[in-house]
């Protein structure tokens, strides 16, 4: 028996309690003090509803983009050998390592009307900065690594034996892709997508630079929470933050369910 259980468990629980649980409980207490009627009034206000709608819609758009680009990127990194593969692999970490404020600043300059991409896009009639599309781009940037990093190891582990078996049974490439490869990577892919979506829902730094933050149109939920705080409207801030927390919790449960399914699929035990 290894000693130190009491000390280690005590430290861990005490730290988590003070740093993580205490603030979350304080927020929940504050929100539950509101009473159902007031809570509902805050949430059903047109501005809150509009901010939730634009956040969820653009998070979905960003996740869709990352689902396709992330899957191709993971496939390329896992299956192909090419010059500069190491650099590409390292570049995938950029959105996680780069502070969100820096990403937001750069993307805004890039997609503004006088920017490298914003200029040509604007002439095509597609304004990006200060529109909902800009929000989706900022969200897609910050959540990109999730899909790549969950799918890439699964494709690497896949091996070629199963598809060879499929081939020797006369299956075409497309059939193998659809019936053998895709089902194997699907749980990981779905988990990656739900992580990316959850991250997009809560993203703040990158989005507020590019969004323009126009109430009812390009104002995300996280920013509305922040604005309510600055207005000293603590009740509204608590209610909206509690809803964000609830959304995060739902996404956490969904992701964990998918991951548990994924592990069962692989026939592995826990962890």
């Amino acid at each position, binding site marked *: 028996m290894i000693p130190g259980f009491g000390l280690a468990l005590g430290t861990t629980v005490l730290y988590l309690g003070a740093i993580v649980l205490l603030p979350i409980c304080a927020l929940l207490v504050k929100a539950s003090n509101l009473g159902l009627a007031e809570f509902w009034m805050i949430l059903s206000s047109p501005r809150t509803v509009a901010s939730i709608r634009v956040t969820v819609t653009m998070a979905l758009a960003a996740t869709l983009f990352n689902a396709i680009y992330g899957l191709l990127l993971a496939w390329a990194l896992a299956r192909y050998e090419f010059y500069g593969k190491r650099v590409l692999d390292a570049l995938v970490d950029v959105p996680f*390592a780069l502070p969100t404020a820096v990403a937001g600043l750069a993307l805004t300059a890039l997609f503004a009307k006088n920017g490298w991409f914003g200029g040509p896009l604007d002439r095509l009639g597609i304004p990006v900065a200060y529109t909902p599309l800009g929000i989706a781009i900022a969200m897609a940037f910050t959540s990109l690594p999730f899909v790549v990093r969950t799918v890439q190891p699964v494709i690497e582990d896949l091996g070629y034996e199963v598809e060879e078996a499929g081939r020797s049974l006369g299956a075409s490439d497309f059939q193998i892709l659809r019936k053998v490869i895709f089902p194997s990577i699907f749980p990981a892919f779905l988990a990656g997508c739900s992580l990316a979506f959850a991250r997009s829902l809560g993203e703040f730094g990158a989005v507020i630079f590019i969004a323009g933050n126009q109430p009812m149109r390009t104002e995300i939920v996280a920013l509305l929470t922040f604005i309510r705080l600055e207005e000293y409207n603590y009740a509204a801030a608590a209610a909206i933050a509690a809803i964000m927390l609830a959304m995060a919790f739902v996404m956490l449960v969904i992701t964990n369910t998918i991951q548990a399914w994924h592990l069962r699929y692989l026939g592995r035990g826990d962890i």
Partner: protein
Amino acid sequence: MTSAAPQRPSWMTTPVGGGKATRVTVLMLVLVTTILFLVAPLALIVTSALSGGFSVFMRNLFDAATAHAIWLTVLTALVVVPINIAFGLAAAWTVTKFDFPGRTLLIALIELPYSVSPIVAGVAYLFVYGTQGLFGPLLEHFDIKVMFALPAIFLASLFVTAPFVARELIPLMQVQGTDEEEAAVTLGASGFATFLRVTLPNVRWAVVYGAILCNARVMGEFGAVSVVSGNIRGQTTTLPLQIELLYQDYNVAGAFTAATVLMAVALLTIIIKALLEHFADTDGRLP
């Protein structure tokens, strides 16, 4: 990949997607999107910061407010990262070397901050230490300032980075099991000596790995710090907040100069991470 694969008949050797046309199409798509989406922002930061020439860049960098923000950011990292390493080691040691009821719940709790939006974290802290908060009256009575001051920046940074070191350690220590520790204890080593001489050397690279990721996040944290710091100019403005202030003041070159500092930290983090991963391939000490 599978270098030691047995000889296969020729009609089988081209794996799915291995044909030249597919390969070239996928690679082109990926490379072009990556250059537009990931490389262009980085290039833009550097060119924008240097647009006024190197001397302007240096002047922006050593501007009093920016220099103070850099100092504050470094200070925050110096406080938060060591605490996080200590917590990560304790947490990973607890959940991997022992089995107890509620272990899975504890792991979920450790990872919880990953799922919480930084803004929510900031608001939550306000309801603990703010004047409206749980401890507000008490703190006010003793005239202790937590909110809109350095302690709040440290606390919010501790919240958002809580899982960083632990998450790197847990899978590794899980695989390593408890055999070596049990042997050490059987031979008469104390718990502390076992930890210091057996466990710690086995996970040292993972600790470094987690610590640099934690450091990058602490230095770059925006949302949570933005809420709890009150963004008081020249006092609680960390580097990411300084970027926003400069940008709002229409000092775009200054904002990009501050951004290059954080970008340098980010790129350095990625390089060290890649080196550690490469190193671990030969050493086998990292997940």
